[in-house]
């Protein structure tokens, strides 16, 4: 079924192309309405494109950006201290509390630290793996390795987190106990595929002849990596780090399972939605990771490394 046909508003039939109508005998007979519509859309490429994009644009506009806007607005409301009812008046009170209370600053910094550590660990583990997959493995082995990297994503998040809980418990295989380190290890494991896959894709696009050219001109492995591989795969690294960083920043389950008594931003949001029943404050806290990510993207953009390609 032609989906674009459904979304086209009813109206007068499309005008015939100039010069096509007269001398009817020679011209091929016009097809049915669907055919005419297809031809019309073919001639009007921008219209066709906007029709094709209308569903995703609608999704992006309403469901995604709309929700984000709703979050920002509700962060400016407050709850009545006694009744717990929502008061729809605009106030900066939530943000004031966020900025002044020592505990929130500590939690925010801790969360950023955890996210940065997870990103760094994933990068260090993922790059050699992605390189081996893209440049050293045979095409057959490559397919299997991609599947091997993807399989953990098919298992439930909770199952994996609890598996690490068992591993890390005092009488478990590793026995390191719970806490921030345990959280970082578990999150690194959980988000590793999201770092490997973009870097793998980036390295796949990097022609082998560039690596050979560097070697041909006298560069050894490390210099080739530093001057050719890294600059050309940096955008892929950024893509991967956005995944690992933002996923870690938003997490509140792993830290509950293996984090001991540590709290991250996600826990504060969760507790304010649930136990504390303070939705506006939860929304205010939730804007923090969004702002951190925006700052991160701006910083990456400023390096100019993304314009290299």
């Amino acid at each position, binding site marked *: 079924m032609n989906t674009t046909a459904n979304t086209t508003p009813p109206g007068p039939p499309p005008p015939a192309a100039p010069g096509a109508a007269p001398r009817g005998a020679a011209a091929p007979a016009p097809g049915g309405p669907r055919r005419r519509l297809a031809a019309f859309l073919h001639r009007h490429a921008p219209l066709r494109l906007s029709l094709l994009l209308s569903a995703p644009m609608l999704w992006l506009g309403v469901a995604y950006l709309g929700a984000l806007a709703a979050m920002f607005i509700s962060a400016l409301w407050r709850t009545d201290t006694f009744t717990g009812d929502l008061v729809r008046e605009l106030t900066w009170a939530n943000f004031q509390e966020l900025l002044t209370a020592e505990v929130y600053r500590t939690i925010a910094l801790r969360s950023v630290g955890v996210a940065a550590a997870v990103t760094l660990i994933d990068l260090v583990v993922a790059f050699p793996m992605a390189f081996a997959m893209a440049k050293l493995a045979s095409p057959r082995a490559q397919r299997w390795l991609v599947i091997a990297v993807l399989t953990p994503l098919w298992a439930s998040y909770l199952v994996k987190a609890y598996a690490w809980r068992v591993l890390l418990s005092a009488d478990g295989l590793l026995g390191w106990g719970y806490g921030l380190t345990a959280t970082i290890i578990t999150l690194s494991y959980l988000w590793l595929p999201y770092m490997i896959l973009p870097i793998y894709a980036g390295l796949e696009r990097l*022609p082998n*002849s*560039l690596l*050979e*050219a*560097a*070697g*041909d*001109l*006298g*560069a*050894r492995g490390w*210099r080739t990596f530093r*001057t*050719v591989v890294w*600059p*050309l795969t940096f955008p892929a690294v950024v893509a991967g780090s956005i995944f690992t960083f933002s996923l870690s920043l938003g997490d509140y389950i792993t830290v509950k399972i293996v984090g001991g008594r540590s709290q991250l931003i996600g826990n504060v949001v969760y507790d304010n939605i649930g136990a504390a029943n303070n939705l506006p404050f939860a929304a205010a806290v939730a804007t923090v990771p969004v702002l951190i990510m925006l700052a991160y993207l701006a910083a990456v953009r400023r390096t100019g490394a993304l314009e*290299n*390609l």
Partner: protein
Amino acid sequence: MSDPAVRLSGLRKSFGAVHAVTGVDLDIADGEFFAMLGPSGSGKTTVLRMIAGFETPTSGTVELGGADVTRLAPFERDVNTVFQDYALFPHMSVLDNVEYGLRVKRVPRAERRERALAALASVRLEGYERRRPGQLSGGQRQRVALARALVNRPRVLLLDEPLGALDLKLREEMQVELKSIQREVGITFLFVTHDQEEALTMSDRVAVFNEGRVEQVGTPAEIYERPSSAFVAGFVGTSNLISGEAAQAVLGKEGTFSVRPEKLRVTGLGEPVDGAEHSATGTVSEVVYAGPATRFVVELDAGGRLIALQQNLQVSSMDVMSLRGTRVRLVWHRRHEFAIVS
């Protein structure tokens, strides 16, 4: 006698069940412009890659200037490569690309800059230093790749179909230019191509490759005038073979023989034939007028067919076209026919 710039001995390379190179022995002298000519898949690139160090031979050795480098990494060999796809670093300027090899070798900044600019000048790319490779045309990229390799003054420069991606006119210009650059710098050029005309016009010597081995090595004239096998005769120019019963009838000899099309004279049946000449009668089945010359396809009465190329000195297309279907005699000097080893 000094050692050859490149010596390949018993070189073989297999990729699993694919035998890409099946025994190559070659000596390439210092300062030579040497072409490896052969159809696609005949193993030329693989040989070049083994000389550069990108592939390790299955067996055999690679010597550069008398030293065995078979097991050395690319960065340990005194050769540079102009890649078929140029392999310019897209994130660096033209100047940074050309300076790359010098920077790796820690050549001081001032000398580095001077040599890079001189290399760019030698390929006529002054003023393009700040551009990125993506902002250059195919021919300009090709010249940057050349400058990037030449600036290191390697013992041997390896070029893998360097003109393959250029259009005809630019390719012809670059053929002349490459040749004059080589004469200027005096570096050994080892050059891969599947274009027989390119190989013949540019090189001092040619090795003709077929199915992973060298069929014949020689000067362009030797390769063209005296092909040693039916394959070489066919790949370099038009083969024009006379064999079997036709050879018996026309030449009075056993075997397979070849005559180049331009050595044949198309005459009337009654023309006298010199004692030093051979001739064969036949019917013109096809006439192709190509401006300066005309190509006649003649079906021999004795069997087989020969192609004759005649300069259009006096005649016009009208004249030659009327020859189709007529009976003619092809005449050639005996020294222009040669036996082919089958």
